[in-house]
Structure formats: C-alpha cells, structure tokens
C-alpha cells in the first residue's frame, strides 16, 4: 500500500487542469536552446554583479587614489582611468544604473503603452483617433531620435532621461496592444463576458490583456536592450547622468580624450554594453520563436 502514496494514481495527474501543465512549457523550450541559456547566464551574472556591486567591486568606484591611466594588471583588472579610478569597479557600479534605467523605463513605457493601446482599441471612435494620431506621429521616428527630441525639451539629467526614454518607447507597446484588442474584441469569449454583465475594465484586464501577453513580453525584451543602448548613447553625448556618476555610456565618454594613451578606458565599458545587449537580444529572439510572435513591422 505504501507505494500508492509515493506514486499517486495516474488519474490524479491527468486531473491537473490543462493550463497548469502547459504554463511552464515555454521554460522547457527555452532551456533547450543553448544560446538562450548562455544569454540567461550572462544576464544573471551582470544583474547580480550590479545588485551586489559593493561586494563585487574591489575598490570604491569614485576613489581617485590609484595611478593615472594604468594598464590592466592584477591589482586593477581593467586598468585605471584618467583620474586614477579603478575601471572594473566603475563598470560594476555602472551596471546598476544602466540596467536600472533600461528596466524601469521599459516597465513604465509598457504600462503607459498598454493602457493607451487598450483604450484606443477598446473604445475606438474619437478616443482611438486622438491617441493613435499622436502614436503615429511618434511612430514616424526612431525611438532614439524621439528620446533626443524629448531631452531637448525637458533638459538633461538622469530623471529627464528616464522620462524621455519612457515616452520614446511607448508607441511600440500601444500599437501592438491596440492591434491585439481589435482582433480580440469581437471574439466569442469577450462577447460572452460582456453578456454576463462584466464591466469594461474587467473585460480589458481579465480577458483581453492575458491574450496579448506574448507579444508584449517579446516587445519588452527588445525594448530593454534598445533602452539600455539609448541611455548609454544619451550619457555618452553628455545629455544623461551628471559627470562622476558611473554609467557605461559616461565611462566610455570619459575615454574620448585619451584614445592614444589608454585604450582600455574605451574598450571595456563598450564591451559591457555590447555583452548585455547581445544577451538580451538572444533571449528576445528565443522568446519570439517560442511564443511564435511575428515581428511587427509596417
């Protein structure tokens, strides 16, 4: 009798709802892809390094107490910069701001974009018109250009960069969600739900949004890598964080006057950006395959 306890009857396994079992299938599929797994490992390492920066970084990122522009060595793995700061420590701390800006801006623009897309698609009419005319205007330009325009209006600095990048990326989400809503709005389950007296908000959030989740997740992945690049670009141009704050774009910008004397100052921060963005892109590509999301291009 004892083994019947450790091996529950097959019937009970089958009784698990279909949804429960298929929920994790995508993870299974993801883990079978080598590049995606490698990318996930790299991303995990970089995120952990950023979070645990005080433990990982061997030196204070702003301490100007070491030799000026020393080449990489055992004491300073990636060398030191023109003010005698340890480059490795600065890049580790830089991960914090670069990743934070990338993730936060995309989360915010996802929330705003989804909201606008839901409203436009669900209500149609003048709501749709007003929202989509603006989205179309923004859609006509690359996100980075929009971000630069917005920084031109709001001014420079970290918080303005976050606002600018957030607004610059929301059109992608709004368009995807609106398209999904338009195709889902007339489906039987939505009509049925409305017939049972569900309110608009409930229909949008409980019935329509979950069905639009896959393309939103894929877009978010793509957007995070683009947002990290955008922040790096803005900081590199001097429009981003204030000097001395370690971010990858700014560290790279600091290297500009010392190309002939200290190549490491330029090479390593760029490598950090590239590695991060490359990993996220590999992950995004795998997710796109798994969720079977076609690329939105028009």
């Amino acid at each position, binding site marked *: 009798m004892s083994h019947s306890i450790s091996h529950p009857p097959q019937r009970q396994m089958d009784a698990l709802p279909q949804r429960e079992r298929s929920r994790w299938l995508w993870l299974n599929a993801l883990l079978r892809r080598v590049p995606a797994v490698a990318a996930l490992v790299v991303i995990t390492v970089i995120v952990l390094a950023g979070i645990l920066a005080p433990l990982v970084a061997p030196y204070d990122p702003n301490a100007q107490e070491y030799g000026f522009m020393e080449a990489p060595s055992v004491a300073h793995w990636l060398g030191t910069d023109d003010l005698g700061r340890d480059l490795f420590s600065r890049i580790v701390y830089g991960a914090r701001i670069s990743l934070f800006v990338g993730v936060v801006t995309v989360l915010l623009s996802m929330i705003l974009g989804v909201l606008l897309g839901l409203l436009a698609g669900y209500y149609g009419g003048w709501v749709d018109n007003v929202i989509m005319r603006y989205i179309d*205007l923004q859609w*006509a*330009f*690359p*996100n*980075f*250009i929009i971000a*630069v*325009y917005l*920084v*031109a*209006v*709001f*001014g*420079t600095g970290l918080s303005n960069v976050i606002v600018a990048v957030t607004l610059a990326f929301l059109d992608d989400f709004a368009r995807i969600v609106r398209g999904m809503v338009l195709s889902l709005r007339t489906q039987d389950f939505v009509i049925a739900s409305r017939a049972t007296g569900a309110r608009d908000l409930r229909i949008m959030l409980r019935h329509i949004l979950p069905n639009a989740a896959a393309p939103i997740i894929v877009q978010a992945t793509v957007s995070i*890598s683009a947002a990290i*690049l955008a922040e*790096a*670009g803005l900081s*590199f*141009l*001097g*429009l981003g964080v204030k000097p001395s704050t370690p971010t990858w*774009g700014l560290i*790279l910008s600091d*290297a*500009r006057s010392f*190309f*002939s004397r200290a*190549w490491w100052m*330029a*090479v390593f*921060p*760029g490598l950090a*950006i*590239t590695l991060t*963005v*490359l990993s996220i*892109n*590999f992950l995004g*590509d795998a997710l796109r395959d798994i969720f079977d999301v076609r690329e939105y*291009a028009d």
Partner: protein
Amino acid sequence: MTKYLIRRFLTSLLVILGVATLVFFLLRAVPGDPLGAMLAEVDPTAAEELRRKLGLDQPVYVQYVLWLGRLLQGDMGNSLYGSNVSVSRIIGEAVPRTLSLTFLSTIVALAIALPAGILSALRKNSLVDYFFTFFAFLGLSMPDFWLGVLLIIVFAVNLRWLPAIGYAPLSEGLWPWFSHLLLPAIATGTGFSAIIARMTRSAMLEVLKADYIKVAHAKGLRNQVVILRHALRNALIPVVTVMGIAFALLMSGAVIVENVFAIKGLGRVLIQGILNRDYPLVQGAILLVSTIFVFSNLLVDILYTIIDPRIQYD
C-alpha cells in the same frame, strides 16, 4: 500613382509640421528660459529688452504664428550663442555632411549585407551561416558610437591610415571627403547592415524555393546567373521594405556618430544646441532631421515601385 504621391507628400509635410509645432510649444511650456539663465543675474533690464527684441514677451500663440510665418520664408532665427549666426546658415552647412554620411553608410551597409545574406541563404545552417548570424546579432547589439571609438583607436590612432576626426567637403576632392567619412560610415552602417543581411537571407531562402528558379536551373543557366539575376532581384523586394525601417537606425546612428568623429552635421548641431540650450538652433535642427527622415521614408516607398513594377499605389 500621382494621386498617391501627392497624398503621401502632403502627409509627410503634416508630420513635419506636427513635430515642429509640438517641439515649439513644449520648449516654451518647460520652465526656465535661456535668456533668464544668461542675463538675469547680470542685468535684468537687458534681459527684458532682449526678450522684447526676440518677441519672447508676446503670448505663445502669437509667437507661434510669427515663427511659422518666418519659417515659411526660410528664416529660422539666429543662434543665441557665439556671433549669433543665422540658424539657416548653420543648418545649411550641416545638411550636406549628414547626407554624405548617411549615403556612404548605406553603401557600406549594402556592401556587407548583400554578400553576407546571399551566402547565408545558399549555405543554410552551415558554419558560414551561423558565423554571419552571430555577426548580425553582434552588429545590432554593439553601440554604434563604441564601434566608432574602436575604429578610431585601431585605424586612426595606431595604424594612422585614416583621419580620426573632422570632415572635408566634396569640393576638396574625392579622397579627402571619402577618407574622413569612411570610419564614421562603417560605424553607422554596421547595425544597418545586420538588419539588411538577415532580411536578404530570409528573402533569398523564400525565393530559392520558387518554381521559376527550378526552371532557370533546368534550362541550364549558370548558377551565378540564376542567383544574381533571377533570385536576388526578387529577393530584393522585401529587403527594400526593411530599408525604410532600417533607415531609422541609420539616422539615429548618424546623430550620435557625428559627435564621435566631430563632424559638424545635423546630429552634432542638435546635440550642441541642446547642451547650450540654444533653442532656435535646436528647433531648426529638429525640423531638418525630421524632414530628412520623413522624406527618405517616402523615397523608399517610391523605390518599391521601381524594383517591383507589380506594386501599384492608388
């Protein structure tokens, strides 16, 4: 077709006007003005006087109408800094630089992308294919300004083959122009080429399955002829479609790469203007960047019809 072109042209003008208007009002809605920052502490009356001279004491909608009227006459105001050069002159000098850069970047991108895409498609799932696939991902993930920096370090600082910064107009000769622009063009063109290469690959794969390719082979045409004349030409149609999207990348790349190579094109003018809070200059630069952008998209749409006569607009 003509009707379609006129409609598209007018929509494009509307988009540009929309951007210009939004920027105009947003710049004035944000607290803090450059004159205040420049003069208030030194001499408040001078600031008042200058404000009146520039029309900044008028209501915003009056300023807008006046600004729009002057804009239509090609007058974009004067730069607030230096010797107050007119914005149109600064922009006029910048535009050919940016256009030269984007033009050469496109050439560089196509020169990398077409062979890479065709080879990948012909040797699908081979080592060559994986190699190019990885490089396409790398090209898309690498910040263009970093690539620019690396190119400067290798080819300008160490090998001394090409100049690191600056620009020479075409009137000084083809080589000075080309040698100054080659490194920036590679920096901007690489990400662009990644997109085109991926698109060429998938379009070629699609086309190579078609019956007319089998027919071409069956009638004994040389492989090269089949691929270049029959397959590639048809595969180019979807490629041109992504050119429009990829051009976005090129333009934002140019804005930032110009700053790496100290080329005083629109991108550098725009960024310097933002850093100096030189609003007339910022407005002018945004207007021109937007114009180039919107009209090159229109150009791509027209290009479809030339490459594929089956496509008709009405």
